[in-house]
Every structure is written in structure tokens, then in C-alpha cells.
């Protein structure tokens, strides 16, 4: 008898906890995000601010992986939002693209290589592997073979870089491919012969030499004024029009002054 009573108490407690837990989870909805490593710093800043301003309403789970991974995840319904760092293509039918910020893609070299400017044809020639040594690049202070660093195929920054600064050509296949913007930065930072490309946020953090393209420096100001050629867009992408918590978040990013302040700190506002 004793045992039965104790058991029933335990069951009741378990039942209450079991019922209460889902209720608590419903109160804060979960927004899952995956995709571009380049927009990750921006999106996590925005999400943190959003949570601070709307406490208890929403939780975020932000993963990286690369633009293509995000697009696949959102198509297959694994995440609510994909972070995307490239313009929509024909393969993206059924997805809704919400632009959140613009960013510039900078060509970067090691700090010891004080190369100040590259012409469009020089950039193409270096990254497609036609120019192989630094002696063939006017203004370069490095010597010897050029180490070209590229990104893995899933990177949206790579897609945008190819279409904006490489005349649609592909990066030489011998190039070393880095999985994230952070790894790209680390690789070029430690290789005096290296050259790569990064979003302006990572390129201008120090430790690297950011190279002008066609005489125009790569930074927020030149990108905002439209002088710099390599400007692309970060999108939040949903399957069909955004709904619920995701829509609220995207709308907040688009409208709120707090979000605009974050975007304007390192990136470029839309419009």
C-alpha cells in the first residue's frame, strides 16, 4: 500500500513536469538559422539585441556551414531561416529573400606585403592562376610564389566574389580552400605570400593588408557610396514568406533603429 502511494506521488510529479515543460517551451519560440559564415557575426549581434529587447519571447539557434548549406537546410525544412551571402539564382525558386545588409568583398594580403592597389585584370589573373609569382604583380613587396586562398564551394562570399570581381571566372583549382571566413583570415595572416578575399568586417579588423580594387579602397564608406565594385548583399531566406517569430525578427531587422545601428557599425544599410 505504502509503495503504491509513493509510486502514485512520483507519477503525478512526473506528469506535472511533463505537461509543464512543453508549455514553457511554447512561450518562447525557437528560431533556427544556418548558413553563411560571413554574415554570422552580424546575425548573432542582431539576434542578441533582439532577445534583449524582447525578453522571453524567442530563442535563437544559429549555426554556420556556408550559404549553400543554409539554402539546403531551409529548403528541406531543417531551419527557419538561412543566412545567405549571394544573390538569388534560378535554383532558389520557392524561397523568399529578405535583404538585411550590404557588405564589401575585399582582396586581402599578408600584412608584410604592402600591395596597395590591384587592377581588375590583375585580380582576375592572380586568382585564376595566370600570374603565379609576386614579381609579376606591380607594387607587391612579397617575393616568390603566390599562395591563393579561396573558400569552399558552399561559401556565398566565393560565389559573389566570382561574379563581382572575377568576371564570372573560377578560382584556380590548386588554391587552398578555407571553410570559414575566420580560417581564411588566419591563413592569410600567417602566410607572407598569401592572397585571399574576405567580407569587409573581417578584412578591416587589422592584421591584414586590404588591397584597393581599381584605385578604390575597400571599406564601409566606399561601399556605401557605390564607388567600390565588389558589394554584395546578406539575405535572410525563408521557405515561402516568413511567418511567426521569424517574420517578426526579419521585420525588426528591417525597421528598428536599434538594428540599423548595429548594421551601420560594420556593414552597410540597405537602400
Amino acid at each position: 500500500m505504502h509503495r503504491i502511494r509513493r509510486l502514485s506521488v512520483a507519477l503525478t510529479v512526473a506528469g506535472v513536469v511533463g505537461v509543464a515543460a512543453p508549455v514553457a517551451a511554447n512561450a518562447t519560440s525557437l528560431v533556427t538559422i544556418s548558413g553563411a559564415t560571413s554574415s554570422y557575426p552580424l546575425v548573432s549581434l542582431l539576434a542578441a539585441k533582439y532577445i534583449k529587447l524582447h525578453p522571453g519571447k524567442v530563442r535563437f539557434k544559429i549555426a554556420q556551414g556556408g550559404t549553400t548549406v543554409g539554402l539546403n537546410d531551409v529548403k528541406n525544412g531543417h531551419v527557419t531561416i538561412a543566412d545567405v551571402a549571394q544573390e538569388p539564382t534560378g535554383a532558389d525558386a520557392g524561397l523568399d529573400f529578405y535583404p538585411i545588409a550590404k557588405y564589401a568583398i575585399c582582396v586581402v594580403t599578408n600584412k608584410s606585403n604592402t600591395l596597395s592597389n590591384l587592377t581588375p585584370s590583375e585580380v582576375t589573373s592572380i586568382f585564376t592562376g595566370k600570374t603565379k609569382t609576386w614579381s609579376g604583380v606591380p607594387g607587391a613587396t612579397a617575393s616568390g610564389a603566390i599562395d591563393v586562398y579561396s573558400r569552399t564551394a558552399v561559401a556565398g562570399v566565393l560565389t559573389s566574389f566570382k561574379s563581382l570581381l572575377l568576371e564570372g571566372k573560377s578560382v584556380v583549382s590548386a588554391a587552398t580552400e578555407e571553410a570559414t571566413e575566420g580560417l581564411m583570415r588566419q591563413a592569410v595572416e600567417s602566410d607572407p605570400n598569401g592572397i585571399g578575399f574576405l567580407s569587409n568586417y573581417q578584412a578591416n579588423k587589422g592584421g591584414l593588408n586590404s588591397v584597393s580594387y581599381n584605385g578604390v579602397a575597400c571599406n564601409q564608406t566606399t561601399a556605401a557610396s557605390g564607388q567600390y565594385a565588389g558589394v554584395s548583399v546578406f539575405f535572410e531566406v525563408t521557405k515561402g514568406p516568413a511567418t511567426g517569430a521569424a517574420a517578426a525578427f526579419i521585420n525588426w531587422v528591417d525597421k528598428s533603429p536599434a538594428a540599423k545601428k548595429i548594421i551601420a557599425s560594420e556593414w552597410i544599410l540597405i537602400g
Partner: protein
Amino acid sequence: MIERLRKPWPDHRAERTLGAVSLLVGVGVVAMVVFVATKAWPIFEHNGLSWLLGGGDFETEVAKMTAATNKPPASVYHLRAWPLIYGTILTSGIAVVLGMAIAVLSSVFIVELAPARVSRVVIPMVRLLASVPSVIYGLIGILVLVPFVGNHIISNQEKTSVQNVVQLTGAGLGVTVVILTVMITPIMIALICEALTSVPSSWREGAVALGLNPLRAIRAVTLKAIRPAIVAAAVLATARALGEAVMIQMVSGGKTFSPKPVDGVVFFFEPLRTLASAVLDYHDGISSPPLGATVYALALLLLFSAFALSVTGYLVKLPLRKYQTRG
């Protein structure tokens, strides 16, 4: 109820409980293998066993898989994973052979030759080294060794000699093997030292009394007696080397390339990718069905090689049993 659990258990109940627990472990292992195998099935379905061979371009195939939609055509499943298998064999093989030589020699020194003061310090130090998480080795590799090799050891001439095929940045076979060796040697030393101390000293003394000099006595008697332990150490070390993902991913160059021995010294600077590091590299894209199947197929191959490894270790040890010192 709790009081009843506190009382000493009758034998039959303890037996059944322990039996159930160990059975659960077995069921878990089988369930895992079955799960991985079913997930990997599409790769076998479309490629047969020829996905283990060479002849394709792994990175292009993976890029196609990553971009695939939910219901991809069969051609997307095309896979040739030999460069990964070759990279795994190369790194683990060289590291285990190197580590084995170092481990046997240094264990003999620690146990048989070093003064007691030294071995009292060295043995705990080796144990400590054996438990260092691999990601720490990876960090040191990517921040210190890779830039050092890339900037000071690889000459410009070596770089330009293969520039059309692959780029030498420092990350590659050499650094990977060096770090892997440093990683697995302490485990082997710890195991071999243990075995050496368990060899009765009278055996070696007898050999010396028969006229062998001390070093030959060690070779002829002590090392022979611990051969099963050496095999066990090699199996454990190979298992750790095969499964190492994080460190190798950080220092191997992140490029699916098969280093070519004909390139001479450059061979050691060429990048590669192993099975485990490929699983780590591509697990992000697992939501694309063909890439998911590929990652599971690579994992299945790793599981299978771990299984083959323990069976081989067991078979090698069988004829050595007669020398065993214990049991």
C-alpha cells in the same frame, strides 16, 4: 523501496542486472552499425563497392552533392573516395611505424636503463601526455607548425615546382604525421612500459648469466616476451590515429589531394584529407541527401576499419601467446 536497494543483492539478481547492462552495450553497438549502414546505403546502391576506388574528383563530386535538391538524379550519387582512404593509410601508417620505433626504444630506456629517479618522473609525464586532447595539438599545429613550415622550410623552388597542381602552404602530410606521432606515441610508451615492468627480472638475469650482454638480453628475452603487448599498443595507437579528425582537419591542408612519393621532398608538404577529417568537413551539409549518404558511408568505412583492426590484432597475438608473461 530505497532500503531494499541498499541491502546486498542476491547473486542471481546481480548476475542478471550486470548481464543486462553488458547486453545493452552489445545491442547499442549493433544498432549503431545498422543505423550508419542504412544511412550509407544509397552510396552502395549507386556505386557498388567501386566508390572505394580512385578515378574521380572527390571535391567536384561533393560540390555537386552539396548543391543537389531534395530528389537528386542518380548521377549525383557518383563517388570515388580513394584519395581519402589513401590519405588515411598514409598518415596513420607512417605515424604508427615512427611512433612504434620511438615507443619501444624509449620504454626500454625508461624501464630497464634509466635510474629510478628519472623513470619515477618520466612515467607520470608520459601518462599525462597521452591524455592531452587532440584539439590542443591541432591548435599548436595550425598556429605554430604550419606557418613555420610554410615560411621557413618549404623553398620557393619547391613551391613553384608543383604550383600548377597544388599549392604548398605548410599544412600537409609532414606536419600531420609529426603531430599524429607525438599524439599516439605516449599511449604506446605507457602500455609497453607496463608490460616491460611485468617481465620477471630473473628471465633477463638468466640470459645475462648465459653470456649475453645486457642489451642483447633485452632484445632476445624481454622484448620477445612483451610482443603481445606491443601488438596491443600498436592496435590502440592505430585506432586513435584512424579516428583522429579535429587535429588532422586543422593541419592537413583541407584539400582532397593524393600526395605523390615521386615528388621527392615535396611529397611531405603536399596537402591531403583523411576519412575522419572529411566526415568533420562535410557534416554541415548532411541535410542534402547524397552528401548525407556520403558522410555516413565514410563513417561506415571507419567503423569497419576499426573492427578489422581489432580482429587483426587478435590474430597477430594468437601465435605470440606462448610468450605471455601473465595469465
